[in-house]
């Protein structure tokens, strides 16, 4: 077997496959063919497919989104890239008013088989305008699929699926996932959009997580496991369609739910998941469902504020203990929290990171 590959490389392989497989696929975005190749996710593509299919663009996010939509109407399959989600707000008009609606409002005439890759920034001063996580905004809009794979395997399989999908797909990549590695098949494969994945099973609590939160969830589940508490950890993978069925089935077993999300708490995707599970698995819930997400504030730059802003393992651990009705001051509670205590900075993806990014 070949060595593990990064999330970045997985994305690149997906693009490479789709470009080779269908000449209608093209990639466009600010910096797509530049030396940094979108954090290397487009490396080598310009050389292989040429400037007509691997395109830079002016800083005109709305018009270029419309351009992609129009090209889709005549059978092209555009992949657009924004290096930060926040730039996509300039294109909300075209994304919402056209991409999301076209096929439905024209009664099935005209497809928009478009993928918009966007990166969620975090830390090292990405700050108020470079770190939003807009899955809830897009998920509220009918006609958009919104996916946020957390591991390289899914990044590859879901990106291929997204590009082959006949409707618009918002593909959210958390910047703190790009360097992560795992074994991923070399050949193309597809993972469904809209299906959650049980990362590990357990019976005391269901921990459902979106995007980078899955990494946090897994670490925390490890810590609890050491103390005999088995947490069922679910990678939601898609925000829309949202696979509440998998979560509800899990909650029927565990009786408890905590949802982790990378965005603001109010009107976030975690609320939707809590609402759906509360509606559907009400009787089986043994404790109030709970959420951990960002406070309703803008991302600050200073590391001390960052640390207060982003969820900490301890903070999540406390919420889990509460849902399990275990006192934080109890022996078990304090042991677990102790294990979760870390003074790693919360503004870098890994310890020896040297900004900027």
């Amino acid at each position, binding site marked *: 077997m070949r060595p593990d590959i990064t999330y970045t490389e997985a994305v690149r392989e997906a693009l490479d496959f789709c470009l080779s497989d269908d000449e209608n696929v093209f990639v466009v975005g600010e910096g797509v063919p530049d030396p940094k190749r979108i954090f290397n996710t487009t490396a080598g593509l310009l050389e292989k497919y040429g400037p007509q299919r691997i395109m830079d663009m002016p800083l005109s996010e709305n018009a270029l989104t419309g351009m992609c939509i129009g090209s889709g109407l005549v059978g092209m399959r555009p992949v657009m890239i924004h290096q930060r989600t926040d730039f996509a707000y300039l294109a909300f008009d075209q994304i919402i008013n056209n991409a999301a609606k076209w*096929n439905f*409002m024209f009664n099935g005439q005209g497809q928009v088989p478009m993928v918009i890759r966007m990166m969620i920034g975090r830390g090292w001063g990405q700050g108020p305008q470079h770190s939003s996580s807009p899955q809830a905004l897009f998920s509220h809009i009918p006609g958009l699929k919104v996916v946020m794979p957390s591991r390289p395997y899914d990044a590859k399989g879901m990106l291929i699926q997204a590009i082959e999908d006949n409707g618009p797909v918002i593909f959210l990549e958390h910047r703190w996932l790009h360097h992560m590695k795992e074994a991923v098949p070399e050949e193309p494969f597809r993972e469904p959009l809209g299906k959650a994945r049980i990362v590990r099973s357990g019976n005391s609590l269901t921990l459902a997580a979106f995007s980078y939160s899955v990494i946090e969830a897994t670490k925390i589940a490890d810590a609890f496991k050491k103390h005999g508490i088995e947490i069922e950890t679910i990678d939601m993978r898609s925000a829309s369609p949202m696979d509440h069925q998998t979560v509800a089935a899990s909650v029927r077993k565990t009786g408890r739910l905590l949802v982790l999300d990378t965005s603001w708490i109010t009107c976030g995707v975690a609320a939707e998941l809590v609402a759906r599970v509360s509606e559907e698995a009400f009787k089986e819930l043994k404790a109030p469902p709970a959420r951990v997400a960002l406070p309703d504030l803008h991302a600050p730059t200073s590391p001390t504020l960052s640390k207060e802003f982003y969820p900490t393992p301890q903070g999540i651990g406390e919420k889990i203990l509460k849902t399990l009705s275990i006192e934080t001051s109890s022996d078990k509670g304090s042991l677990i929290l102790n294990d979760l205590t870390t003074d790693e900075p919360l503004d870098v993806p890994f310890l020896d990171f040297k900004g900027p990014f």
Partner: protein
Amino acid sequence: MPIQIPEQVKPYYEMLRIRLVEEALAERYSEQEMRCPMHLCIGQEAVPVGVCSALKTSDMVFGNHRSHGYYLAKGGDLNKMTAEIYGKVDGCCGGRGGSMHLIDLDVNFMGCTPIVAGTVPLGLGTGLASKLRGNDQITVVFFGDGCFEEGVVHESFNYAALMELPVIFVCENNEYSVYTNLESRQPDRPMNKIAEAHGWDVGSGNGNDLNQVAKITQQAVSRIKAHGRPQFLEFDTYRWLEHCGPNEDDHLDYRPADQVASWKKKCPVLQMQTQLLSEKSISQEELDSYRQSILEEIELSFNFAKASPFPSPESLYQFSNTNPS
């Protein structure tokens, strides 16, 4: 067309047809069966017909909120349009859209939508596809003077010039956006100069003169074939009725009375008719027979629309791409 029309009279016939269709729509609107906003282009028929006369069926057209004329001039199906306005299953979008959401892919009328400037950048995409594929399809986007104020139009100017896209933007300058006149929205300078400064070829003319519109558009088409640069055309014209709805609204006094009157004197249909008669290209009897035949066609289209069933409630759930459940 139900009757034979000599080639040189066709544009006139098309204009007359749009006029009569819209008059019929206006008349019947009060029956409360066309339950959607409706923006009529009465008085502005020369632009759609003149521009489309210079296009091939394979060329692509996008419209805006006021698109009956563009749709019909491009060859869109009248029955499907009428049924759409009636919200019926045989409408061109199955009743989902109404007057502001017309589409007829058989003739490459690619769609129109009411968000101002919404379709403008779509034309970049169809234009890019034509260019990448090396075919000769031209894309035309119609919009109004108000639309010119949206930033995306200017982003599009930059991009189409950069990529040398085979697109024609046609700005129908009727001096108003709803009730607001041009002077309240734009400084006193020609729009043309802006497109030109972006590197576009430009043309402008009397939007009530069909021959002029057709000629200017033909020239633009030739320039695209010759050197592939995008083309911006501006035509002056005037809307007779209210912005939205079937009535006149001159009692609201937002337009000078003499302005309305003077533009009505420049009726594109009547001017053309006078010309054809004076040239003896056509006789009064022929004219009458056209009108008769169009009125019959219109009557049939209303019959078609009324006879068509409403879409079934369950059909609402079709084409929902997101949540298959």
